[in-house]
């Protein structure tokens, strides 16, 4: 299992995937720094309004970043698993005294190292540059980063599980569509809460259960916003805004995300065990 994990990491190094991710990190951090310094220079807003402006900008950039992360996670996992199973590389490996579950879990670990490493590194780079350039520090950066990383790992897990039975392209596309659908459902949920439409809320809740990525994002959002901003906007009827979380997510969301990952990984293992190589 550890050998499979090691091979997966070596593969991403040799295929220059890690290099590409590192370049993406630099680009992302550079652009963020530039955007914040420009806005800071040009904007005349003060106080809570300035905070609000920075906060929304940061959330917007981080949201794009999580989207990028999700795509990276999805395509990396799909290619790593389906590619090997389809090409015949896996036939030689699985003829060794290795259980298929251990094979898939080894892949999961290796991919988690690559995808999680990228998420943490690039995310930390983002938050650091913003605090340096704009003197704007989110209240709980570590918790926010952990949640964003967890979101990327969920997407990676989903795509990995699908790729045990489907082609790389199909798994990646299904995962991507699921990611954006749930994101839309999350927004619907926010509107439901704001306008007090129970049906919309139910639809949103179902989305959260099927794929808790957006719920994790909303949790991360709350940790990225300054407390004074949250307090100032309370009761202003600003709910329903995807760039503003008005409260923390309940701990059940986190627990469910963990359970969800376990279930999906187990389904993936089942998929590879049942597969005829």
């Amino acid at each position, binding site marked *: 299992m550890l050998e499979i994990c090691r091979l997966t990491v070596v593969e991403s190094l*040799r295929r220059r995937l890690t290099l590409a991710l590192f370049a993406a990190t630099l680009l992302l951090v550079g652009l963020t720094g530039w955007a914040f310094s420009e806005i800071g220079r040009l904007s005349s807003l003060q106080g809570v309004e300035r905070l609000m402006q920075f906060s929304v900008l940061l959330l917007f950039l981080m949201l794009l970043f999580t989207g990028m992360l999700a795509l990276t996670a999805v395509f990396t996992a799909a290619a790593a698993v389906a590619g090997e199973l389809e090409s015949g590389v896996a036939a*030689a490996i699985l*003829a060794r*005294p*290795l*259980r298929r579950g251990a094979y898939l879990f080894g892949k999961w670990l290796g991919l988690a190292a690559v995808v999680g490493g990228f998420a943490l590194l690039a995310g930390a780079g983002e938050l650091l540059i913003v605090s340096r350039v704009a003197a704007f520090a989110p209240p709980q950066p570590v918790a926010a980063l952990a949640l964003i990383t967890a979101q990327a790992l969920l997407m990676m897990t989903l795509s990995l599980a699908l790729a045990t039975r489907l082609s790389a392209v199909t798994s990646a596309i299904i995962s991507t569509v699921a990611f954006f659908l749930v994101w839309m459902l999350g927004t619907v949920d926010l509107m439901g809460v704001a306008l007090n439409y129970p049906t919309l809320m139910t639809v949103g809740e179902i989305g959260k259960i099927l794929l808790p990525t957006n719920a994790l994002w909303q949790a991360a959002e709350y940790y990225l916003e300054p407390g004074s901003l949250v307090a100032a906007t309370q009761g202003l009827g600003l709910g329903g805004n995807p760039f503003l979380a008005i409260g923390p997510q309940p701990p059940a969301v986190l627990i469910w995300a963990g359970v969800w990952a376990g279930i999906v990984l187990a389904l993936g293992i089942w998929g590879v065990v049942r597969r005829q190589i």
Partner: protein
Amino acid sequence: MAQSQEAAAGGTPPAAIRTELLERRYGRHVALRGLSLAVPRGSVFGFLGPNGAGKTTAVKLLLGLVRPTGGEGMVLGLPLGEPAARRRIGYLPELFRYQEWLSGREVLEAHAALAGMQRGRRRAAAEEALATVGLSGEGLRRVGAYSKGMQQRLGLAVALLGDPELVVLDEPTSALDPVGRHDVRTIIQDLRAKGTTVFLNSHLLTEIEAVCDEVAVLDHGRVIAQGGLGSLLQAKGVDVEVEGVSQEEIGRLGGTWSAPRNASFPELAEGDVPELVARLVALGGRIHGVTRRRASLEQRFLDWLEVR
């Protein structure tokens, strides 16, 4: 060693492979039906059959890559699909592919690790396997830059790595040049000398004829002939080059003229040849040559497929 002890311990030595009515269906299509085999330890077993006969399916069942839909089997004393048995099996798949972003030696080291070999022994085992298949100088190059034949040699090295007790080769020479085919023959003969069991899938009859002790012939998922190569290839009949005997006399002995001076006796059993020669001589015949018929594997193969 372990084998001879088992053999000495009494009775017949346990078979390296034994299957009972092994079956694999894909939907309504039966890829393999009722395969019952016993491959003795230390033998080179040839598995023959035309395209689509079910050879690869059988091999994948033996390695646990595909599950049987019926029947059962044991490999090296363990039930099919048991990971522990695979510790002592080397396998070259029919569609061989190895991680192209690794070097040949790294592929072998990774397989050594997966086979549970101790870290310190992996490098030497990899080098040894590379040398056996004639890739000594190529171990540090990326597999992606190997030619197809080189990749098949690498696959062979993977199968031979760490002296497995059973080596399963699914068409090992499909991509090899004549030199490579000859090398494979030598490798298999060396394996036999070491007491390794070899299961060789092939439709190259000359290859099978040259190295196998025993063969099974498969067609449409069914075994249509099985046994020692000697007995399967044995054929009745002799051709005699003879002068001074009349056509009638030849006819009375059960023969016919096939050419001037050439009499053939298609029904004559092997043991009756001296008797025939003695009678021809007694009739005043001058014998220039006696040739026993021996069917080529190819001819037998075609015969088997015809009578199926």
